[in-house]
């Protein structure tokens, strides 16, 4: 089942689940903490040895892994703490200011 909590800010007393419980697990995924970020980790695929140490230590479950392989950073939720950069044994991750990163993105877009 999937719980639709859209528009919950407007819910009245009789619309809130009993005892204000959540009716589904992991709904926080809908809370985008990526905008907390002032720096972002950049993944250098050339240096990555797929050891998954970054994934093991990410406090925000924001290292994307599929089929046992690191496949990017979940920028929707990554807070840019830099732990992944610190724990990577192969310098396959480095931090970049969010501002520069965005400019870079725009350039690539154009």
């Amino acid at each position, binding site marked *: 089942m999937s719980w639709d909590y859209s528009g919950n800010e407007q819910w009245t007393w009789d619309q809130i689940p009993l005892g204000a419980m959540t009716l589904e697990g992991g*709904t*926080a995924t809908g809370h985008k*903490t990526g905008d907390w970020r002032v720096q972002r980790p950049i993944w250098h695929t050339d240096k990555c040895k797929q050891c998954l140490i970054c994934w*093991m230590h990410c406090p925000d479950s924001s290292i994307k892994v599929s089929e046992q392989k690191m496949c990017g950073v979940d920028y929707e939720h990554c807070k840019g703490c830099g732990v992944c950069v610190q724990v990577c044994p192969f310098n396959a991750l480095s931090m970049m200011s969010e501002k520069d990163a965005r400019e870079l993105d725009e350039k690539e877009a154009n």
Partner: protein
Amino acid sequence: MANIKQLSELPQRLSPGHSMCGGCGATIAVRQILMGAGKTPVVCSAATGCLEVSTTTFPFTSWEGGFIHNTFQSSAATMSGVEAAFRGLKRAGKIPADKDIKFVAFGGDGGTYDIGLQALSGALERGHDFLYVCYDNGAYMNTGIQRSGATPYSAWTTTSEVGDAVPGKRHFEKDLTSIVAAHHIPYAAQASISNWNDLVTKATKAMDIDGPTFLNVLAPCPRGWRVPFDQAVEIAKLGVQTNYWPLYEVENDVWKLTENRRKLPIEDFLRPQGRFRHLFKPGNEHLIKEFQTNVDRHYAYLQARVAGSEAYKDALEEAGLPLISDDGLALESGSVQPFQQ
């Protein structure tokens, strides 16, 4: 235990989108511990604190499985009730007898060493089948860095202030893991987020055991420790390497050190942390010396327990007595009466 690649395929237990600080050690601990459940469903509880507040802001929960928060001191007692319900409902035939759930209760050091110690002790004594995890960041971080029974000697907190008269916390921390071990439960261990392999191994072991088990996990709080936000894992590693936080386990009353890294001087652990800055001011050398002495003394204590465990095993063998887990006594919890119609 599964290797890291296999672990990466386990179900996600803690979703992103929580409001913990960037770089928080507690969420790293939770993620690593819940890997120990494998594919089995997990129901968790948490004491009031950073972890609880920041992972459960309505309507956003980061907990993928069942979760309950009750009060600050009641994580263990609340989970007692959940686990008792699991058994009571099975006995009543309202839940399939073969249904398996892993129960994990979380508490910070404030909710475990201090206000929750009575509830934890009671739950351990009653033998409930769940893992209790203390994520230890050495102070009441949720309320703004006040000292707890886990705060290290001489550390600065907002209630162990540093001044000319008083150089930070005047008391040595409680040895919680030994207190828990004294309940003679099947398994108690100390782990660190910096040693994921050791931690996940211990979590797996603990969750596989029937009966009460305990993990005390070093989970640094960069904000409270006054280190950069990317340093949680690094500083935890130094905690282990300096023997500030020895990694060991107590299984069936048998003590065993699980990591024997080269031992670094305690300064290496203290120097990077703003909460110990005053220790490095001229005239405070004796504080570092006292800190080191206490660390060495505690490590010697652990080594003695390890050595003593050999004698203990021999004594049991000589007397023909079973280990704790082998007689099942520690594994029966609550009321053990079989239900008769």
